[in-house]
């Protein structure tokens, strides 16, 4: 929780990840292209802290840049600008060798437990590989460590010689978690860890991750489009839209009183498994689709779909500012004096 533990494990300052898709050259013009250089601003100036021992949930729709942000923290994608500090070191500027050393502390759990495990390796080798790479154990001790890790995540050590295809989706995700845990990391990026799983298995994996966090004092960045799951596991939640963080607050406040118009729409769109509530509630239905992250809208990226947008929103890029205690939002129409967007006249 924020107030009891104030030290940041990860500190992002104006982090940017851009992908240059080219274009704008001679061929682009003669083939009827726009003639503009096309740049995807996947992560566009993100600043926040992840506190030691907390779970920070990161939500947003597909294409908002949440996975890219997760990958950038582990430098699995090149960082274009800004800083990503981990225990005093800037991940963006470490040499490859220094970075490789840090990967022992920074691990990742992937969405697709089918694609992220090598089908030709036994479970023992999959979990054992990072242990050997970082020379955390040698000889028989590796197998012992693998077996222990398997039991921690709820897999029987009898399966050590089996291959991934012999396991169900939920069990494979346990293997993925075991591989991340094998090197005793401090920080784990979990990118949609439950999205590919059945409902009854999702709860198992969420509970496992929470137990492991308590036991091993882990810090998580939990990336998901499933707002109900994020609310359940996270201490604080960040909402992302087209490369930017639009709101950041404790889970409870963001779900009970979202401030940013996008967060409001996003949260109101989540179906509630209760017919009585569903009957009464009013949804904010957003018009249209998320705009393309290639050359996104100017000013506030959300202005094209926002019912409260004024001409200024097209020009001014809103900054993430504190609106209420520990509750930040990036919208020029709200302020600590005027936190409720509903009180602002519609245009």
């Amino acid at each position, binding site marked *: 929780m924020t107030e009891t533990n104030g030290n940041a494990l990860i500190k992002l300052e104006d982090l940017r990840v851009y992908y240059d898709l080219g274009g704008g050259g001679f061929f682009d013009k003669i083939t009827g292209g726009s003639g503009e250089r096309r740049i995807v601003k996947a992560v566009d100036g993100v600043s926040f802290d992840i506190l030691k021992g907390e779970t920070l949930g990161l939500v947003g*729709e*597909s294409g908002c840049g949440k996975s890219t942000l997760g990958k950038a923290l582990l430098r699995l994608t090149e960082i274009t600008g800004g800083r990503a500090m981990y225990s005093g070191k800037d991940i963006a500027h470490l040499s490859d060798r220094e970075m490789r050393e840090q990967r022992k502390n920074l691990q990742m759990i992937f969405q697709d437990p089918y694609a992220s495990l090598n089908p030709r390796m036994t479970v023992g080798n999959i979990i054992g590989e990072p242990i050997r790479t970082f020379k955390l154990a040698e000889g028989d001790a590796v197998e012992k460590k693998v077996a222990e890790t398997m039991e921690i995540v709820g897999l029987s050590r009898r399966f050590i010689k089996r291959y991934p295809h012999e396991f*169900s989706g*939920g*069990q494979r995700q346990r293997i993925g978690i075991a591989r991340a845990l094998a090197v005793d990391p401090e920080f784990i990026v979990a990118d949609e860890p439950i999205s590919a799983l*059945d*409902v*009854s*298995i*999702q*709860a*198992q994996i*969420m*509970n496992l991750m*929470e137990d492991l966090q308590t036991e091993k004092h882990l810090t998580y960045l939990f990336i998901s*489009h499933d*707002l*109900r*799951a994020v*609310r*359940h*596991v*996270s*201490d604080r939640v960040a909402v992302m839209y087209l490369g930017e963080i639009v709101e950041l607050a404790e*889970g*409870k406040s963001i*779900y009970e009183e979202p401030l940013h118009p996008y967060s409001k*729409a*996003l949260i*109101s*769109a*989540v*179906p*509630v*498994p*209760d*017919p*009585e*509530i*569903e*009957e009464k509630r009013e*949804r904010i*239905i*957003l018009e*249209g*689709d*998320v705009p393309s992250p290639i050359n996104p809208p100017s000013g506030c990226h959300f202005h094209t779909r926002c019912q409260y947008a004024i001409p200024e929103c097209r020009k001014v890029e809103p900054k993430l500012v504190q609106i209420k205690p520990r509750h930040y939002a990036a919208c020029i129409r709200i302020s600590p004096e005027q936190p409720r967007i509903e009180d602002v006249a519609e245009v």
Partner: protein
Amino acid sequence: MSENNGNLLTVNDLRTYFQTEDGVVKAVDGISFELKKGETLGIVGESGSGKSVSNLSVMRLIPEPPGKIVSGDILFDGIDVRRLSDEEVRNIRGKRIAMIFQDPMTSLNPFLKISTQLMEVTQIHLGHSREQAYDHALEMLRKVNIPAPEKRIDGYPHEFSGGMRQRVMIAMALSCEPELLIADEPTTALDVTIQAQILELIKGLRTELGTSVILITHDLGVVAGMTDKIIVMYAGKIFESAPTKELFAKPANPYTKGLLKSVPDPAHEHGEPLYQIPGLPPDVANLPPGCPFAERCDRAEEICEREFPPFVQINENHHSLCHFAKEVHASSGGE
């Protein structure tokens, strides 16, 4: 089964089996349900529960072999679907019964213009001329809120976003004003804000056209707001069927209860462990003799592993497949 009692669709003791290397998979094993005109039925279940196969059976879309509808009746508006010739089925499918699938990219032909694909439906089923079909296609795109339809109609599927493709699929499905729309995980591949748009669209069109809907999903939140009644499937069987409000308020099956409890509730405080159903969904090719859910069930007793449970009637419209259905029902509610 001669009368249809105002039912648009009556499925009685349907069994669809698949011949596989691991033996016979009883994907759907003796399910029965009814759907009245204008009603919306939700079918909920995890992967492998048989929820999709049961509806593919209704549409006669089961690949044969390896699959086969082994027994049962499917009555659509008094017509015995199983006895129809392939030709006759094609006349119903797409016209009176339409279907939308989870992945709108794989269900649209990437090589054909949206207009061609939309026009085909009414040219075949309603005998439209090219001009009539084009106008109709345009009107349908307008109805599903595609912006600037006169510009988009001659585009190709890859030029549309996921949500827009699903709108095109819905436009196509509703072109002939079908009496029954089967929507198989129609929003699973979409983002929540787009999901909300699509669900609102289906709701609106349902009211406007009076279409009956079968909504297949794994998301209990989606069925809560959309359906009149719900069937919960597990291992090819109906585990529980009830009117939507009753199912959520007073479930009579431990599996349903477990599913409901394992959905994170935003009102709950962070830090409380989430209820979890232990174990894994069963291997449908090798089901135990007793209740297929017994080994994961917190209510199971010795009888559950030995004997297949009865389909107990709780009240007029509420049934549960459980040895202890009445006790489970009595202990539900107020949680």
